[in-house]
């Protein structure tokens, strides 16, 4: 393939990234989009024109106008302000859930891949069980069982992602287990724990990053789905999923702005994360590009 033939050597990382971005405008856009989202999330309290929770019932359900760019909802709350604050919450949910499943999953998976034996078999069984579950239903059941609070939504999303990280890390570590540099690290007196934590885990990190990026988008969609069936974040917290789910109720009465803007925000975020994941793959390993 032309990509692998012309790609520069690995040490010129920045140059490589720039090269990939030039060849792949979508990735550049996705990066810009992600940066924008993060900026909005950080700045939300300062740039939001209104209080996202303050109601104004006489001014309810107004279409977009100069005072309310994205219109108002059933309680007269400013949709733009709610969206901006929602960015914060949704990115937190996604990052926390994916971070958690990555931290736990990659750790367990790496140890299993490195140590093998009985532990590996038991963990393998456990991941088999989780994988055989219909995942969305599992998430629903967990949120219903633990109560639909923010932290439980994060836990549920993290748990249904867990088996993928365990498997992934296990396979990648098992491949590297017998590599020269691992043996060297052991020979120089590092304990097994140290070898996994400080040598193997950092080594597989870049490959896992692709998965993380794809999962971020998926976690947001998952939270939105939970909101739609009434198991989402509690009102009146501004969260995209709950705004889309509530807005969807108004489709039939022609109040399009209630679903359109949150829906667009949600799509934009998921799109950025997905394209970014693809792009990361290119940057890390051109031959893996799919």
């Amino acid at each position: 393939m032309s990509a692998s033939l012309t790609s520069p050597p690995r040490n010129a990382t920045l140059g490589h990234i720039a090269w990939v971005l030039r060849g792949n405008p979508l990735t550049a856009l996705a990066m810009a989009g992600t940066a924008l989202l993060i900026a909005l999330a950080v700045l939300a309290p300062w740039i939001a024109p209104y209080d996202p929770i303050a109601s104004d019932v006489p001014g309810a359900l107004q279409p977009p106008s100069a005072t309310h760019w994205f219109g108002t909802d059933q309680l007269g709350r400013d949709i733009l302000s709610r969206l901006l604050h929602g960015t914060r919450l949704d990115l937190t949910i996604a990052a926390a859930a994916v971070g958690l499943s990555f931290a736990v999953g990659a750790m367990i998976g790496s140890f299993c891949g490195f140590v093998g034996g009985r532990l590996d078999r038991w963990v393998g069984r456990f991941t088999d069980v989780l994988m055989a579950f219909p995942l969305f239903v599992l998430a629903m059941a967990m949120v219903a069982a633990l109560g639909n609070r923010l932290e439980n939504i994060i836990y549920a999303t993290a748990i249904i992602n867990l088996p993928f990280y365990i498997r992934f890390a296990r396979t990648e570590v098992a491949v590297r287990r017998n590599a020269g540099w691992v043996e060297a690290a052991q020979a120089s007196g590092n304990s097994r724990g140290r070898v996994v934590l400080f040598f193997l885990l950092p080594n597989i990190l870049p490959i896992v990053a692709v998965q993380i990026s794809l999962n971020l988008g998926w976690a947001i969609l998952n939270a939105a789905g939970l909101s739609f069936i009434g198991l989402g974040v509690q009102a009146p917290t501004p969260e995209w999923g709950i705004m889309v789910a509530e807005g969807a109720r108004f489709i039939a009465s022609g109040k399009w702005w209630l679903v359109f803007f949150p829906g667009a925000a949600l799509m934009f975020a998921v799109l950025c994360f997905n394209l970014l994941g693809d792009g990361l793959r290119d940057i890390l390993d051109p031959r893996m590009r799919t």
Partner: protein
Amino acid sequence: MDLTRRQSLLALTALAAPAGIALPAGAQPAASRAETLRQVTGNAVNTLDPTMPGSTREAFGISMNVYDRLVAFGRRQVDGNWVFDHTVIRGELAERFETSADGLKITLHLRKDARWHDGTPVTAEDVKWSLDRAVSAKSLAGPQFTTGSLTKPEQFRIAGPGVIEVLLDKPDRLALSNLAVPYAIMINSKLARQHATAEDPWAQSWLQNNTAASGAYRIDTYRPGVQVTLTRNEDWKGGAEGLPFFRRIILQTVPEAATRANLVERGDADLSIDLQASDITALETRGKVKVASIPQTNGFTHISFNTQVAPFDNVKVRQAIAAALPYDSMFKAALFGRGRPLFGGTFTGQPASADFPQPMPLKQDVERARALLAEAGLASGFSTPFAFSAGQAATAEPLAALVQEALGRIGIKVEIQKMPDAQFNTLVAEKKLNFYTDAGTAWLPATYYFFYLYFTRDQRWNFASWNNPRITELSNAARFETDQAAYDAACREMIGILAEQVPLLMLWQPNMDAVMAANLRDFTYQFYRQVDFRDLKRA
């Protein structure tokens, strides 16, 4: 060759025919589209026997159309709409009835020409069996019948062919009314008993999926959770106005409210009674459908406190919250104003009318709220959860947001808890929710019945776990009071105590908004909040 193939295909069909479908009775000419009514609903029918624990409201609706009861409530016109009238009771399977002067004996005479769906005549033995079943079998009927002092089979006596007597110890004012509720179905006992077993002497498991009825419609197909279709019983005699207009009824479950609205507006469905308030307003404006908006006069939406638990055991705290809430905004945001407010009443002390529910003297007065909270020693406020069920989210979610905002202003920090319905109901029944919103509907909207059901005794429906000795005394006395003036006085006193003690805040009666095809007429609001297909007509 061809024949055998078709035969095997038929055999296959028979094998694959799903269980739980009652076979259509006899071949009748197919009903035209005009004679077919299609209702779409968000919920589902889950049993054909309405007395089964867990039966849905839709199941009540179907049973009212498929079974007959001995008597039925009349109806009257209010503001151009038909509403049930529980003060007028007419015969349904009974042709006539009389109550003895002392109110201790009700004699019911069955229609001579009444037939079960299988063509056999309705006898006094069938009726006795059905009534015995209601008070003996483990079902929801028993507890309902006790509210009419009907508790044991000995109270039902056959007094000759086609004559049945109901005997009472005390003249209970709701004994006869209880014979008109959905649980009081009359069952073809000869048919049902063929399916009774030693463990199941009342054929409860068979009747869940089959009917032994005499009502205006027969079950054509029954797919639990998906749809029910009915065909008219051409031999029905129990109606006040002869045979129903519609020959075929389709009741279909469509979970998405927006889709139901689309279906009715495009004319693919004829009727829906559970659309969202926002959609109804839009549909009304566009004018392609007819909307009958009728306040649910026997129901109420409320905010309840657990009066047994601090800080809500302090009447000042309850009064403070009552004075802090923005009732008008809540009414507008949650219901879009589609209902009858139960706040903003003007009486002090006791009301002029003994009717209930009626608007209570609740209005927003933030200064008074702060003062009351300070009097209760909680000037710096406190924090509390506020719960509602996911099934009511469309109205309760905006309501909760406003409650949170308003109480925040007087220093009370509210954490909103939306829960799945099962969890919510469990916690209400176990009295573990201290501050929540819910709704109640009384089938028999007598004032004493509301107080007896919702404000006395340690039971599921005492929303506020309220224990007021005077209310208990008055409601028990009113139940057996035969003097109207004394009864009214007791009712007014109870309403006065409720207004002063505010164990719960009466908010409003939501409208029953029946959205229907423009050519439908005579929709009646029924106490069980479902459609009586027997009244409906297409112009």
